[in-house]
């Protein structure tokens, strides 16, 4: 009961605090991407597409959704502190970054489903001025932009043989972006007006996953291809006065993602993991889908690598001997740019995994420090982010068949 209570409180309670990921680059494109990867991967520099995890779900590669030893629920949250040394801006936000449920179906098949945010944006600006009249009309306009995309995913993995497995994942995208323009008028007559523009997006993606292990070389390889099946949006204009209007659906060429991953094991439980991802982005994407103003789009890359020290398989007396230790680094670019200046982020990570209750549960922590640079450097300078993530996996040995001896 305690475990259930803690899980519900810890994750669902935090959904109410859906604060946006904060960055000055958040109003562009689909918004700033969330830390939706598993916390274990984040601790290893966002690398781990080839890392099999029987306890906690590796949400990135559906080919690994088999061979589960337990039925589990997992969730994760992140807390980001943003600092801009050039402007003195400092802020913090908490964000629910994913929930997943997995269960085994026999020894060779597993099924998983979950919910996670993909991108978030939130920013505002206030304008104040007057219009010459008698008496002058003074106006104060506040523009707020917030919203994002989330996905519900469901999929399955199938082990072809002990060395190879395939996986399939359907992702159903949904989200809204709201731009509010609120104006207060004083001088002469005190009045207020607002205009709200809501852009609703939905779509379906399909991810194919492949995973293989080269036993002799102690090397695991993973490959995923995320392809859009359809993605579209419409916009609703809500005026304070006059009729509202809704546009027809427009299709979006949602980016296609390819990710190649490897995991090489060494002695003493050490493993080196690396991921290389490529996002194929339509150059006109954010001219068609422009919430604030059109920007150019380009394909992006994700590069991550990390080391993980797994606990010894034998009984360990000391607490610290039973933990996972991770470090890593990453580099990635955003799919939008302006003035030929790409937005890139480089950072280092560290992580810790604490398995407990017969290795059916695990608490993962990750700490990320990154620096983001791009076309706003001239105005705001580089952004420094310190992010702390917590992931919790609660497993039970349901649906497991035990042989009678």
């Amino acid at each position, binding site marked *: 009961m305690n475990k259930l209570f803690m899980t519900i409180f810890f994750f669902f309670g935090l959904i109410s*605090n859906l604060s946006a990921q904060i960055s000055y680059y958040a109003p562009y494109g689909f918004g700033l991407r969330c830390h939706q990867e598993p916390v274990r991967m984040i601790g290893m520099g966002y690398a781990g597409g080839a890392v099999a995890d029987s306890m906690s779900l590796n949400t990135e590669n559906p080919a690994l959704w088999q061979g589960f030893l337990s039925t589990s629920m997992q969730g994760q949250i992140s807390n980001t502190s943003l600092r801009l040394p050039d402007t003195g801006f400092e*802020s*913090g936000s*908490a964000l629910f970054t994913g929930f997943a449920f997995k269960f085994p179906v026999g020894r060779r098949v597993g099924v998983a489903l979950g919910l996670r945010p993909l991108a978030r944006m939130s920013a505002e600006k206030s304008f104040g001025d007057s219009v010459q009249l008698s008496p002058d009309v003074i106006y104060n306009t506040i523009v707020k932009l917030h919203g994002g995309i989330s996905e519900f995913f469901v999929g399955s993995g199938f082990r072809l043989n002990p060395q190879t497995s395939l996986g399939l994942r359907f992702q159903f995208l949904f989200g809204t972006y709201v731009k509010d323009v609120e104006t207060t008028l004083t001088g002469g*007559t005190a009045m207020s007006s607002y205009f709200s523009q809501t852009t609703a997006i939905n779509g379906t993606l399909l991810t194919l996953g492949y995973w293989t292990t080269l036993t002799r070389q102690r090397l695991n390889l993973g490959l995923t291809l995320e392809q859009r099946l359809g993605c579209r949006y419409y916009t609703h204009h809500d005026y304070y006065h006059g*009729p509202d209007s809704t546009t027809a659906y427009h299709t979006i060429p949602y980016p296609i993602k390819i990710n190649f991953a490897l995991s090489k094991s060494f002695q003493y439980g050490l493993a080196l993991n690396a991921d290389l991802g490529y996002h194929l982005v339509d150059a006109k994407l954010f001219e068609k889908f422009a919430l604030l103003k059109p920007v150019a789009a380009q394909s992006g890359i994700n590069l991550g690598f990390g080391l993980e020290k797994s606990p010894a398989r034998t009984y360990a007396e000391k607490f610290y001997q039973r933990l996972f230790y991770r470090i890593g680094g990453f580099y990635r670019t955003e799919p939008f740019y302006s003035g030929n200046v790409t937005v890139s982020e480089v950072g280092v990570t560290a992580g810790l995994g604490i398995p407990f209750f017969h290795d059916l549960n695990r608490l993962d922590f990750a700490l990320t420090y990154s620096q983001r640079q791009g076309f706003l450097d001239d105005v705001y300078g580089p952004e420094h982010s310190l992010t702390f993530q917590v992931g919790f996996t609660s497993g039970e040995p349901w649906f497991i068949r035990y042989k009678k001896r």
Partner: protein
Amino acid sequence: MKSSVWWSKFNSHNKLARRLCAPLKTALLSRSGWILICSFWLGRCEEKLPVLPLDTVPVEFGTFTIDHTQIDDTTRIVSSQLGGSSYLYAGHDDNVEEAWSLLRFDNLSVLPDPLDSIESVRLQIYALVPLTSDTTLEVSVLLMDAPGLALWDEDSLKLEDFDFSAYQLTEIARFNCAAQDTYSIDLPDTVIRHWRDTNSLNQGLVLRQSNTSPSLGYFYSGETSMPPFLEVVYTASGATVTKSIAVSEDIALLKYRSAVANMPGRNLISGGLAGYTFMKFKVEDLITDPNLFIASAQLHLTLDTNLTRRYSSSQIVYLSLLDSSDWNNPDYAPNTSSYDLRQTITTTDTSVVLKIPITIQRFTSGYNKNFGVSLWASPSNVSPALLGFHAANSEQVQYRPHLEILVMKEE
């Protein structure tokens, strides 16, 4: 005890470490501890939103002017019904040709029948400062009889329908009204018997100016907390009794000078005259986007100071929407509980700016069909005051009304 000894005893068996770690251990292992930790964590997530990279304000302003060529206006003078007014009037001046007040006292049943003897009958009435106070107002109290005529009542009586020649008027008292005070006017004691014991209907009394000097006075009516009443002193069974009989019906009849109501190129607003100014602004031809926000709409009106009579008091003007049939309705009366604007016009104003963005928004956004607006004065505190404005066809072009509109569009 030496401190080192005390410390050794206190910290024996590593008690201190355990004491220090106990709260932390409790926090980590208990449900409430986790709640506290999470609350603390969330509490520090004070989100400050980054500034949107917007260079220009996403709203645009524009101005429109509705000049006199795009304004239809007229003055509608309807049959005034002043029974609900708080004031009664008597006298005349250069604005009002003649003003009378009718009073009826119906509740005579409070008096015993038969009366042994009536000692006195007095009319008590509270007069305010005379509106036109250059001369003393001399008021006659007339007994009104009309054999064969039905009783008048304040809710339906109109000036046009009232014919004094059909009534027999008998002066029964006279008093001078020079200052604000309660006046007690002795009436002949026969007036009670006349109303109660004869066959003719009790048509009441008339207050009417008896001198010819221009003077206009006014009194509190039965709609106020200081109504006129009769004070009757009589003897019954050897005892002297005083009874008060409140006024049952009362109404002022104001007859304006004909030159006032029919001045070309002018619009009038008056409660006493029941004069309403109708105006229609052809805004739909100019503002065709229903989503434009009317940030300001200023209707500029210029008062004709020669025509205007304010009697040294501010006037309140209301603006309300007209219905499809109002423009041609000879009995038009504004809905006093629903209006778009209420504005005070002081005694020194020579021009008025009425801010009516809400009204214009109704028309441009299609919330209301544009049948025009009505400008009117409050009928509850009817005053003989009259506000005269230059109309769209005023011979003085610079004083014609016009409407300035500021629109805003959010992008």
